[in-house]
């Protein structure tokens, strides 16, 4: 009985593997034999991107994800933030960044809604297969002036079908808005009079690692933030799994 049941399991697995293999086989045959030099428009890659918010009390704005070539970079430490990055980092609005018109960006996807502390969200992003395949993913810590967590230029080209990669997301400061922590400057729920994007640039005007926030509980009485809004790096953990 035991033997039989174990044998039937093996059989089922074998059949499944065979059907998977034949599905893969036919598509790679297309690549290797039928189309040699002409790019195959139907050859796609897809990734599941799963993010968990690791902060205590920093909801993360809707995720922004882009697949792109290696010459695209959404930010660089020491460089001035683009306006689209500023809009995301100050107000959590990813629309401008995801609409960036660049031949190097293959595809762009937004997450659905904010990601609350402790919550995990998955989005799927796909693009035509390409020799260079990098991921940019970022999101604002909404109870801050202009903090965002993310990775840009994460190389996925070596990720095989079914493989995963795990990354911890550091926190950056866009450098476009001073970290005043004052009422009327922060878009998140910590600031009832909150403000998002403001085109004025009243900070250092370069991207750097975020220095963290102070808060009213640490002697900055004018701050609308309290101790629960403190954070350290990393602010989130990211798992990228290639599904196609």
């Amino acid at each position, binding site marked *: 009985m035991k033997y039989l049941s174990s044998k039937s399991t093996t059989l089922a697995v074998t059949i499944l593997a065979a059907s998977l293999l034949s599905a893969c086989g036919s598509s790679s045959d297309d690549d290797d034999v039928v189309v040699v030099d002409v790019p195959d428009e139907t050859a796609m890659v897809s990734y599941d991107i799963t993010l968990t918010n690791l902060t205590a009390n920093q909801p993360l704005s809707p995720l922004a994800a882009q697949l792109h070539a290696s010459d695209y970079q959404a930010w660089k*430490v*020491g460089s001035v933030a683009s306006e689209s990055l500023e809009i995301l980092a100050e107000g959590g609005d990813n629309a401008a960044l995801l609409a960036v018109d660049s031949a190097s960006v293959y595809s762009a996807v937004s997450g659905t809604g904010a990601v609350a502390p402790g919550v995990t969200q998955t989005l799927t992003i796909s693009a035509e297969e390409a020799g260079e395949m990098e991921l940019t993913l970022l999101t604002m810590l909404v109870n801050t002036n202009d903090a965002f967590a993310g990775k840009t230029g994460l190389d996925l080209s070596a990720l095989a079908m079914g493989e995963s990669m795990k990354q911890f997301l550091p*926190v950056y*400061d866009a*450098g476009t808005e*001073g*970290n*005043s*922590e004052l009422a009327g400057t922060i878009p998140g729920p910590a600031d009832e009079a909150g403000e998002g994007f403001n085109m004025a640039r009243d900070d*250092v005007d*370069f*991207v*750097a*690692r*975020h*220095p*963290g926030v*102070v808060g009213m509980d*640490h*002697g*900055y009485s*004018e701050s609308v933030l309290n101790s629960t809004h403190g954070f*350290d*790096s990393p602010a989130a953990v990211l798992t990228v799994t290639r599904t196609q």
Partner: protein
Amino acid sequence: MKTKSLLSILPLSLASAMAFSQSIDVEITNLTHGIHFTPILVSAHDDTTHLFSAGMTASDELKAMAEGGDTGPLMAASAESVVDTDNLASGLLAPSASTPVTAIETGVNTHLSIVAMMLPTNDGFIGLDGWEIPTDVGTYTVYLNGYDAGTEVNDEIINGGGTPGVLGIPAAPGMDAGTGATGVTDMESNATVHIHRGNTGDTNLTGGISDVDSRIHRWLNPVAKVVVTVK
């Protein structure tokens, strides 16, 4: 991996005879938003040398670097075989700035250490302690944390005090700090090298407990990024 395990079973004399000088490029980026680094010392040395050791009392040479940014005593104390490369940024390395890519011939040395004082702090420094230089050609990225030398009380009073043993912070190069502070603390419980707890600061630029601005002169680890290219 294979090479490594092979080396570990070779007699010591043979292993050291196999050591050869490597050409490496080093580039250091200040990742912080509002902290300057004093002249940076990159030291290539053997596997037993340490400019600092976490959990140990700082040497007088490290103290001079951490309290005043003076790398001279550390270099003067280096063994003859050590390759010291000083002042990569030709002065201070500003927040988010990078040093020029600097070529170093390692000589007989196999490990790399890096130190520079963080300003404005009393005795905070960026530290890399004895990182083994890879032998495979490639580009390697290392992130550095902020340490406290444990030699000076973190009173956070900016008074020009950079001489070893003189209390106080030498300067805030960003010219964005206050004056007239009464001092955050007059005692420390850990006199060994440890991870810096960060500045306390305040928002009072003409008094209060700290001359450091709590909104600006903060950091989270890591504070520096080092890119080493083995050629």
